[in-house]
């Protein structure tokens, strides 16, 4: 029965981790869905959240739960000018221009992290997350549960923001038809600015939670980005519910993959899944053909 317990354990931690992975992918998904932009600096935005937590919030002695919304606000405030002054001017150029600019940004950020914080491995101690929880045969780190709950709360909040508020209405309009939205009085440029800021805020929070579960380095961004992309492709584009499902699925598959093949293969699972999805079912698991 011991083997069954191990599998159940890794399934549970996979689901819990999956919630956090979904939050980490949410920003990428929103920005891609609304702005049609592949943000190649998304991984570095996640890491920015982690560093803000380690080097700003914790030295200030803020409690983790209070620090989280502050990280979100700070990230949004840092990201908004990036969109306004770096990406917005490229709106009339081919879509590759903005994507390559985010690639340039990711190179810059990655190396600025190395210069400022050195190549050391960092991990975040989130509240009392180090202790573990044991329910019958199932045991997992407390941080998995905290991360999962917080992620679901943030994802639901973003869902509410997009489906129920005036900003959300403008955002959905800009996503489905920017020209028609503009004709009807939506300031699409403004919406794009705030969308990018929202994506960065989600990334910051996601980065803090991921950094609390796994350690990170200045160059973890590429792996973060590709995992997030695997989730977006799994769940289908610009679909918050799909992103959640994709995240949970990737979390479970990563845990099982790590269990069966060894921990080194954990990140490979997402990459292979991404390539397979692109080859076999590019519209996403939930999407309809031709969508």
């Amino acid at each position, binding site marked *: 029965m011991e083997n069954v317990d191990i599998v159940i354990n890794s399934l549970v931690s996979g689901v819990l981790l999956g919630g956090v992975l979904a939050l980490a992918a949410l920003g990428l998904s929103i920005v891609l869905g609304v702005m049609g932009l592949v943000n*190649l600096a998304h991984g570095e935005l996640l890491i920015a959240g982690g560093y803000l937590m380690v080097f700003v919030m914790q030295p200030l002695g803020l409690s983790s739960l209070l620090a989280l919304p502050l990280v979100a606000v700070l990230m949004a405030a840092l990201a908004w000018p990036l969109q306004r002054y770096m990406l917005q001017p490229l709106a009339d150029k081919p879509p*590759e221009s903005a994507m*390559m600019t985010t*690639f340039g940004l990711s190179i*810059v950020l990655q190396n600025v992290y190395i*210069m400022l914080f050195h190549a050391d491995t960092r991990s975040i101690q989130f509240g009392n997350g180090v202790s573990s929880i044991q329910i019958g045969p199932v045991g997992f780190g407390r941080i998995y549960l905290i991360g999962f709950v917080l992620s679901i709360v943030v994802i639901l909040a973003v869902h509410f923001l997009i489906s129920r508020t005036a900003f959300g209405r403008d955002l959905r309009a800009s996503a489905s038809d920017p020209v028609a939205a503009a004709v009807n009085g939506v300031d699409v440029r403004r919406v794009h600015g705030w969308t990018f800021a929202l994506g960065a805020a989600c990334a910051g929070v996601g980065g803090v939670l991921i950094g609390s579960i796994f350690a990170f380095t200045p160059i973890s961004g590429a792996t973060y980005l590709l995992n997030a992309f695997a989730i977006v492709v799994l769940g289908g584009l610009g679909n918050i519910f799909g992103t959640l499902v994709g995240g949970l699925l990737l979390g479970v598959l990563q845990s099982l993959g790590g269990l069966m*093949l060894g921990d080194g293969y954990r990140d490979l699972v997402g990459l292979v899944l991404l*390539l397979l999805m692109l080859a076999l079912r590019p519209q996403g698991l939930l999407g309809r053909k031709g969508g």
Partner: protein
Amino acid sequence: MQTQIKPAAHADAAACRTIAYSVVLLAVVGFPIVVPGALSSYGFEVGFRLLLLMTLAEAWNLLAGYGGLVSLGTASFFGAGGYMLMGLMNFAGLPVLPALLASAVAGAALAALVSPAVFRLKGLYFTVGTLALAEAIRLFMINTSYFGGATGWFAVVDPPSVQVLYLWAWVLFVFATIVLSLYVSSRLSIALKAVRDDEAAADQVGVRVFRVKLLAFMTASALMAMAGGLQAVKLGAIEPYGMFGISWSVDVLSVVIIGGIGLRAGPLVGTVFIVALSEWLADYPDVHLAITGLILIVVIRCAPQGLTGLAISLWRRRNGRRTQTGRADAAGAQSALERG
């Protein structure tokens, strides 16, 4: 990011310019081979890197400049070529040249294998798909024990001298230049550009979109794999972190974007710039990369045709202004005469 298609009347002149440019370039770069003592061994080292990067950049330019396929997966094919060559030399005792040709085949085969995945959903997904491919292969090579694992392989045969390596790199560069010149001047490139500009419309008029893209992808990948093979010969020892490292993909992309995408001289200008920058900041790799990223952002924003395009337009503007001031002076002199 788009190159202009020149009117037919200028096509011959453009072809002549291209040939003249290629001949001059090949002669200048080949010069140290015929004249002994023209370069120090440090010079040959840097020259080897220049030639290798230029070969990679030419291949990448075919994909991105002509096909609109912006790849972040150069390292996949570079590394695959290196491992193929080293494997054949170590375990089958093959000499360098046939092993290098096998590398090309491996690169093309890998491209064909992954094409169903990376050509889906077109455009931006190609970039992400190729990045995922490079990372997947790197992680696989690190974790699996089949290909030497994280430590990699050591060459059984000693690496040749820098002069010989330079000669080979020059031959590979000449080969790449010929292949790509033929490619670009053939009908194939017209179909490729049509696919780049409007995939749906190209499909409508009977261009076999998938095949056109696949051929360019395989050609570029074969050349990249040969470059990787040469790098493996030079290093004498290969491991997954270096051979499949993302820095190859980043370097090549930066070279072409900074040099001038879709322009004949772009890869050369970009390579010289990037190699000079990296030699200058050799002790500060993080500063070097941060500056490269910054330049990348500025160039995309202010000079979409790169440094080459910028130089051309500045030169034209300067010439234009000179003729204008000339006219103004003449007019001034005229009126002065009339007044006088």
